[in-house]
């Protein structure tokens, strides 16, 4: 799939080739693998992974991936500083977020689930979101040899549209295209679907793709 990235009226944006999309998908794959290892160590279970799906889409379309703008989701948002800069967001739709919280918090069959306490639920998801997004960043760092310094992650559990809305405002853009890497984690019979959204600052994608061996001409 081809796509245009970070374009505006003055800058028509960036066309990415199939090879460049493949490189990003592969980086996403290794990142998801890292995240699965982290998750597996926490819950002491084997974690299966789907092939990641990478696509480029307008940020305003992102809520459709998780059930629409009014759908409840857990979102983790953080800035990246260092040699390269940008932002990343991890979105987990509610059903998956519940499964993830149950998995991490444990609890016996038939008992009142600990994840039903909203404070504990949010706290578990905040923590998992930080760990998973950190795992992706570490993988990207290892692959590119670049230093990705994440800032403190921000968390929200609310309407998908409202979370994306705040990110739009933070980035000051309404029509920016973003890279979305979707991955499914499988733990026994449970599927947890995560969407990692990358917002490279202008110029950053060029550096990353150069390091991945598929430079922008």
């Amino acid at each position, binding site marked *: 799939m081809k796509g245009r990235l970070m374009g505006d009226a003055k800058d028509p944006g960036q066309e990415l080739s199939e090879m460049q999309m493949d490189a990003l998908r592969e980086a996403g794959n290794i990142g998801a693998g890292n995240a699965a290892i982290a998750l597996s160590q926490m819950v002491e279970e084997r974690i299966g992974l789907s092939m990641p799906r990478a696509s480029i889409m307008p940020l305003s379309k992102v809520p459709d991936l998780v059930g629409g703008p009014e759908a409840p989701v857990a979102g983790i948002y953080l800035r990246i500083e260092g040699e390269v800069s940008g932002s990343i967001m991890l979105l987990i739709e509610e059903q998956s977020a519940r499964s993830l919280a149950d998995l991490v918090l444990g609890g016996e069959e038939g008992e009142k689930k600990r994840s039903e306490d909203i404070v504990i639920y949010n706290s578990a998801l905040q923590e998992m979101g930080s760990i998973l997004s950190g795992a992706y960043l570490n993988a990207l760092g290892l692959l590119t040899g670049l230093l990705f310094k994440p800032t403190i992650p921000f968390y929200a559990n609310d309407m998908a549209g409202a979370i994306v*809305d705040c990110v739009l405002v933070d980035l000051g853009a*309404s029509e920016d295209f973003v890279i979305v890497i979707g991955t499914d984690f499988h733990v026994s019979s449970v599927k947890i679907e995560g969407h990692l959204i990358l917002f490279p600052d202008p110029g950053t994608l060029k550096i990353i793709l150069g390091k991945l061996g598929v430079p922008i001409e």
Partner: protein
Amino acid sequence: MSEIEKVGVAEVKVSENPTTLVSYGLGSCVAVAIYDPNIKIGGLAHVMLPESAGRAGGASPGKFADTGISYLVGELIKRGAHVKRMRCKIAGGSQMFKLPGTTHAASSLENMPRTQIGERNIEAVKQTLRDHSIKIVAEETGGDHGRTVRFNPSTGEMEVSTIAHGKKMI
């Protein structure tokens, strides 16, 4: 069930009975509904940032509070509305993100590049409305949660729905 028209980020739409204008999932953005009850016409602006600071906003004047409201007022006047009769309802402008381990909104942090944007949006909206001498008759703003707004221009009713606090008519 009347027809529904979506008002996306940075959009401004005007409707005549019976279309309901809807903005889904407002976070720090603010939905500004202005209507003239006498001729039952109104519109909704989904503003994203406080001031245009001289930028025209290009094809989307609704991006900024000041240009968005001025544009909406202009469109209503073109359709026969009168500024003196205009009423306004606003919703949105929350601070969604929280830091791990706290229940406080992240607004007080310097490393969040655009801090307190929700509050600044609300303030800019109110200032622009004062400049136009348009009265706010109801508002549902601030806090830390997302909102969906459904505005019926012919009745002036606004329904604000949230996940945690249910629905409310203002």
